[in-house]
């Protein structure tokens, strides 16, 4: 189970952005399962 300091804890409120848009990409050879998580990317 993941345990760490929550992101953003204690930080000032960020400036409001007028546009937020992002996209990430990787090899699409993922697990590709349906109703079961095989933890090849383990929750830490």
């Amino acid at each position, binding site marked *: *189970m*993941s*345990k*760490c*300091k*929550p*992101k*953003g*804890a204690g930080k000032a409120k*960020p*400036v*409001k*952005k*007028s*546009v*937020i*848009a*992002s*996209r*990430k*990409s*990787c*090899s*699409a*050879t*993922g*697990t*590709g*399962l*349906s*109703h*079961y*998580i*095989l*933890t*090849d*990317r*383990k*929750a*830490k």
Partner: protein
Amino acid sequence: MSRTGTESRRSAPSRGRFINSGEGPTLQPIDVGHADYLALVDPDTAFWSLVARDRLSDAMSDGPFLQAYRKKAAAFAREMNLLRFGLKPSAVYFNPTERCNLNCSYCYIPEGMRSGGEHMSRERLLEALQRLKDYFQRTLPAGAVPQIIFHGAEPLLAREVVFAGIDAFRRDFRFGIQTNATLLDDAAVKFLGERDVSIGISLDAPRREAADRTRKDWSGQGVHGKVLEAMDRLRGYHAWSVICTMTRENARQLTGMVEFLHQREVPTCLMNIVRCTLPPSREVKPDDRSAARAFLAALERSYELYRETGRKLIVGNFANVLLAILAPTARRLMCDISPCGGGRCFFAVTPSGDMFPCSEFIGLESFRGGNLFRDEVEQVLESRPFQLVTGRNVDVIDPCRRCAIRHFCGSPCPAEAHEMNGAMDRTGAFCEFYEEQIRYAFRLIADGREGAFLWDGWDRGTKTTFEVTATSARRAPR
């Protein structure tokens, strides 16, 4: 022949200068329920942006934002095309027995199979795994390790042959097992843990009264207590998860379930809404609205617990929705994409070797595509029953074809659509439930909270292909 809407709109003599006309990008505005932001989504490419409500007209004009997206639109369309049509199977749901020691009210395997079906012999199971190994060696790139998930019915009723298969093929496959946990004793946990086998167990509610209403043995006795004992045995193991099936019976307990799982230090859970493929499961179907309300409340509680403790409980199916938005190719589950993963990213094998596109279809004889012992896997994947599933395309389903979020939802599930609603070109059992999840996901992103719902390091191995975080709509994108 092109298969996506984006590819098909390439012939008009238009420079694509304007949004939503000619060859210009299609960006549909969506009210995601956020006070400050609307979403703009290109349905074909799954490109999204969040735009301040008072800057929407700027974003939709021919400025830096639109210019930046125009440069990327074709690449994003290719990415979605690959994800939707270019993958090969890498996983198998393997049922070593038809039998189950439980008689859960929503099970998609027919009761007759579960009560009196067949077990696979050791020899047959080993032969089946060898055939699957041979198939994957022919089709997967060198170094890729396919996955076998022993599933059910209850796979631990065939414990000896399952364990023999794991030991015989542990260098060839990554193994997982989905079990009702009633037979998951100390020896089984030790065996599976020593071999790094992922373990999924099923539990529907924190309290006995609710959990036992849907998950019970053939005499009607609930198994909540036995599952809790198994959870104690699994505490500290890195690769286990809990599947909670959301029904009308437990929807109000989802928030309590999150608290319970978090307190028990469960690393990951799935909170899957019940599949309504077979009639008995429709008896416990929640309505979309109340299911969405309960699910989002549970997610919000998981966030609060993270803030309070610094420890995450990942709700895997929702994490997958976030991934579908943030990094489409990084998604792990393939129910919320169209075509779904059934028959193209994974398939299911029964004790007799019969092959189905997904476990949901076991029991629906017309969807049997062939037999692992008699047919080549490649031929089965091209069979008519498999093509019925892999050919189900959200781009032609009504109303999904007009829906801006169709590639974040995928209009699950083909088995439901076919059995409950009469045809593959229909929606499944739920719609608004998915709408609300995706709107919530966008609100999280707008507030910068999405990381709390994803496992640490989720973006390892990814690269950023688009980023605009303008504090002014007129500022050039990075």
